[in-house]
């Protein structure tokens, strides 16, 4: 654990430093996040971002297809209707490292983000939201299909 944290500090980019100095991320959080990307299970990744037992919430809305034509590009949009949303984190349970992306939402920015993620296989996709200091979570299964004629 200590070893990988050191590594995270060493390889941590300039932006991370910027976020820290701007006070957007607290030092503990930033380190935990950088570390969390190497975690191999959903539980470890959640622990690494400090979300022990996130409460299920239906105020987190997924906009993602239930079936994807290709796992290399899966569109995922998440809208958090929770007041005081501070961050939105995407995790794909069955990816080799489940943590995909984490977005910090400052005041004045709407709690909705849209991006595209890679999925190695059919999996539950989780949106973890931190709002007013607490963690909430919602999930959706996305099926990955095989396609084409020569694959």
């Amino acid at each position, binding site marked *: 654990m200590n070893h990988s944290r050191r590594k995270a500090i060493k390889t941590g980019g300039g932006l991370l430093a910027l976020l820290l100095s701007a006070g957007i991320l607290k030092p503990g959080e930033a380190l935990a996040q950088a570390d969390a990307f190497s975690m191999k299970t959903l539980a470890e990744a959640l622990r690494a971002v400090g979300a022990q037992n996130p409460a299920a919430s239906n105020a987190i809305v997924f*906009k*993602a*297809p*239930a*079936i*994807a*034509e*290709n796992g*290399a*590009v*899966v*569109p995922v*949009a998440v809208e958090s209707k929770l007041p005081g949303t501070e961050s939105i984190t995407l995790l794909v349970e069955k990816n080799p490292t489940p943590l995909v992306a984490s977005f910090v939402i400052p005041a004045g920015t709407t709690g909705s983000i849209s991006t*595209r993620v890679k999925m190695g296989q059919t999996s539950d996709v989780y949106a973890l939201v931190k709002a007013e200091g607490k963690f909430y979570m919602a999930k959706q299964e996305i*099926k990955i*299909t*095989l*396609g*084409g*004629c*020569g694959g």
Partner: protein
Amino acid sequence: MTRLIGIAALLGAIFASGAHAQNTTLDEIARYRAQLQDGNPAELWEARGEDLWKQKRGPKQVSLEQCDLGKGRGVVKGAYAELPRYFSDADKVMDLESRLLHCMVTLQGFSRADATKRVFGSGSSRSDYEALAAWITSESRGVVMKVSLNHQKMQEAYELGEKAFYFRGGPHDFSCATCHSEDNKRIRLQDLPNLTQKKGAQLGYTTWPAYRVSQGELRTFQWRINDCFRQQRFPDLVFGSELSIALTAFLAYNANGAAFNAPAIKR
């Protein structure tokens, strides 16, 4: 005979129960495609293509703005909707990519070998054709396809392209028609346009080039037919070859009357 009817009835029953699941699958795939439409990475290729078109390049340090795509030197707007066409300066029928190759060689002074070194890109080894085609074709978006067979050589190209379309060969006995000559067929979950009918030909042709999410690359029509032949188990279709242009002429002419709508985004 009664056994056959029995089987048909049974199949009917199975399909009635399976139809709902299948519709849901297709609806979700449609949602997947719809959600990708906003934000097509093809735009990244278009931007690079426009720069490439305007840059002075090659041993002669000339920009492609001197290149005539059929509507006069440097005219890009709407040019793709009339390609392939007969070019008297080369006395040949050319599609976009073979015309660009011609201009790179004759105007910019590249050797043919240099100009065909990387016709299809892969990751950081990028193809100028893919970028140029992305931009040039984007300048025909919304323009109605109007390919002319008035010249005898275009007529000949069309006829050769049509024969090639139905030509079965290779260890799998495939032709283009194996997959593209009937309505409402799919490979896996991918719809196959019926290229022998107006509607299918229009839909198929006017949505290339396309950003392929499965490859993370923008692909041109030359790539499309090259890769179809690869999967047909044919040898490697030469970039800009006579047959590739003939087949393109056949398909482009059949798409006449439809508004061009690419670069698109596809699986």
